[in-house]
């Protein structure tokens, strides 16, 4: 039996679940305690001991179903471990066969039905009810198992269904896929984003916590110190210090949502959505020709709904040509007055102004209010001087201009920014230490090329390192 579990664990590892030797020992031990009764309970035991994360449970189930496939029936009286070993060895041929047919598990009955549109709805419903047998129900005699599969779990006898004029099933099948035009996120994308952000948070947290601990310390808190040292006869062994009041760093984000940069801006919005409330006070704006604040919506709406609302043009008109000059002017008029606390400023856009007035003097005013200004553009540096792009003019007002193309780029840039913000407000000693650490870091010119072009591995450097990001 140990061999079977070891094989199963190896399969799990192959599918990306990390299982330690200790855990597989636990699994064997647990099976020993509970005994092997039926498939369902054995699966539960293995899952309890081997899987340590919710997200891994579907993968585990898949591997379990593949590894312990349903063609083994064991008489409970016979010697179980030997028999199972033998069965598994016999199965080897079958596994090879499965390996050769990778598309094997894709043939469901759904697509078939769609092709054959002449089928009458009753038969169709009947066919649809031929569900796949849940592998957990495969204990028992072969015939009952098959019956369960045919009649469904409820064991209802097949009976004539009423003829629907509008069978919900056919409606479902005829629904075309082309309605999904807007930009929304698939669950995988959202999970990937969560992953990127959580990794980023992990990296950041360590530094920040240490800084925070030192930062919070202020002058001696006399009363608290006396209280604390009451037990030591008032000898101040332990010192209580006043805490400094601290606020979350503020961030203002201006995000272009016109079609030319939509792929970058949607990730920016998703990043903001995920970051929101974690450690930042973010005010978010989107613009095309007009500018609108979406801070509240970002905090309260599911991100996909928000994307749809933006794509529909409900918040700002997307059909207009984007105009950075207009937007800056409007922003100055409506929002600049009530920005407080010297926020860091991020502008995401391609700086293509459609030959409108540049109004770059507004950026100068924003600069005065902002602690830091960062421009993110999805375009490579060598295209900045072409056409209506005003990147060089706008860039001269910014502390930094970065090229971002993927989520990883974006998260790296934002991480750097957050680090800078925290370092900026850190205690002088910490700041000094941080700066020293930064200076001591070995400067690797490769960083320049990998950042911003991390999409394709080993891509050629296309722009001059010296002039890339600092003015």
């Amino acid at each position, binding site marked *: 039996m140990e061999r079977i579990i070891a094989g199963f664990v190896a399969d799990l590892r192959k599918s990306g679940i990390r299982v*330690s030797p200790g855990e597989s020992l636990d699994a064997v*031990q647990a099976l020993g*305690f509970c005994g092997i009764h039926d498939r369902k309970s054995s699966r*539960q035991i293995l*899952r*309890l*001991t081997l899987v340590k994360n919710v997200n891994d449970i579907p993968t585990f189930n898949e591997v379990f179903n593949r590894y312990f496939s349903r063609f083994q029936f064991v008489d409970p009286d016979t010697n179980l471990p030997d028999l199972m070993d033998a069965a598994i060895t016999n199965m080897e041929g079958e596994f090879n066969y499965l390996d050769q047919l990778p598309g094997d598990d894709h043939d469901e009955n759904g697509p078939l039905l769609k092709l054959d549109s002449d089928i009458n709805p009753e038969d169709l419903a009947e066919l649809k009810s031929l569900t796949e047998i849940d592998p957990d129900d495969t204990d028992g005699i072969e015939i009952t198992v098959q019956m369960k599969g045919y009649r469904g779990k409820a064991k209802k006898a097949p009976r004539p269904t009423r003829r629907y004029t509008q069978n919900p099933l056919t409606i479902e099948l005829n629904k075309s896929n082309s309605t999904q035009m807007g930009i929304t996120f698939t669950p995988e994308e959202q999970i990937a984003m969560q992953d990127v952000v959580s990794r980023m948070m992990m990296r950041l947290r360590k530094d920040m916590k240490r800084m925070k601990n030192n930062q919070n310390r202020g002058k001696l808190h006399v009363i608290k110190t006396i209280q604390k040292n009451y037990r030591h006869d008032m000898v101040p062994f332990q010192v209580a210090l006043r805490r400094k009041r601290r606020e979350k760093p503020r961030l203002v984000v201006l995000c272009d949502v016109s079609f030319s940069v939509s792929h970058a801006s949607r990730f920016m919005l998703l990043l903001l959505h995920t970051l929101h409330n974690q450690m930042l006070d973010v005010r978010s704006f989107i613009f095309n020709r007009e500018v609108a604040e979406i801070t509240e919506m970002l905090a309260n709406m599911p991100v996909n709904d928000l994307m749809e609302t933006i794509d529909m043009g409900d918040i700002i008109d997307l059909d207009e040509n984007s105009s950075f000059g207009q937007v800056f002017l409007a922003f100055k008029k409506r929002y600049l007055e009530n920005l407080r606390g010297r926020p860091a400023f991020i502008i995401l856009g391609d700086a293509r102004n459609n030959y409108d007035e540049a109004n770059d003097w507004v950026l100068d005013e924003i600069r005065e209010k902002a602690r830091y200004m960062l421009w993110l553009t999805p375009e490579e540096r060598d295209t900045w001087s072409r056409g209506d792009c005003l990147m060089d003019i706008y860039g001269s007002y910014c502390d930094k201009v970065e090229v971002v193309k993927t989520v990883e780029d974006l998260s790296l840039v934002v991480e750097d920014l957050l680090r800078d913000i925290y370092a900026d407000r850190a205690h002088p000693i910490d700041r000094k230490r941080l700066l020293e650490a930064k200076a001591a870091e070995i400067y690797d010119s490769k960083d320049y090329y990998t950042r911003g072009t991390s999409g394709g591995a080993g891509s050629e450097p296309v722009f001059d390192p010296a002039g890339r990001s600092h003015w």
Partner: protein
Amino acid sequence: MISEQGVKDLLNTGGYIADDAIATAVFLALHMEKPILIEGPPGVGKTGLAKALSTALDFPLVRLQCYEGIDEGKALYDWEYGKQLLYTQLLRTQLDTYLSVSADLREAVERLSAEESLFFSKNFLVQRPILRSFLSEKRSLLLIDEIDRSDDEFEALLLECLSDFQVSIPELGVIEAKRKPLTILTSNGTRMISDALRRRCLYLYIGYPELEREVAIVRVKFPEICEDLARQMVSFLRKARDLNLRKPPSVSETLDWAQVLSILKATQLTPEIVANTVGVIAKHQTDLQKVTDLAAQELS
């Protein structure tokens, strides 16, 4: 020793309707003496399981609520400085006579240091929850609640306690558990818990229960609610969970609602009743509207 089914029955009689996965986990934890890490959305009965187990198995419950900044002084042990000082004060005269025999200062110090261990003995040790459950004469149930609220450092501190059931105190040495407690850790998943801690535990995910189990839970807690109403409530709430609410109604909300309905002596769900009691199910302003809309759609 109790069997798997025995665990389930025990919990059922104690008013906690467990499914197979929960029963198996508890059974294994009892036998393998391993902690269980329970994850799941808030209000599905993670802490409730621990409480129900402690009454059903008659293990005294030792509860440690985690929070940001919790440390060993709050979780494992602490020295009772006040008592130490008081004792030195009270024993001063005796110390004087004891030390007066010594010829010089050096000898006095030696004599005193020979007795030093007196002041770092178990007499002056304050047992915090984890140590208390380890030293309990009877097998106890240690509940470490909402572990995700604590910091990484505290998690690392727990590793020794949870894998070997022992506490190292520098002044005293290693203290081992007299009876290994049944340990339950709960987490709401607000923070990823490290793999090292996960590896030392059995992992149990409690999600929202199936229809039948949830109906059974309502019926056990509130027998005065009839089967039909319970079923109607539960299926309505299950639909509400699919609405993408900010705070989806959990089992605890189901039970609150059942209580409200039994006080109102309702026999059937109507849109009006839902509208009047919606505050029990939905906990955000935006959610209120969605739930009342659902009620109007489903129940009229």
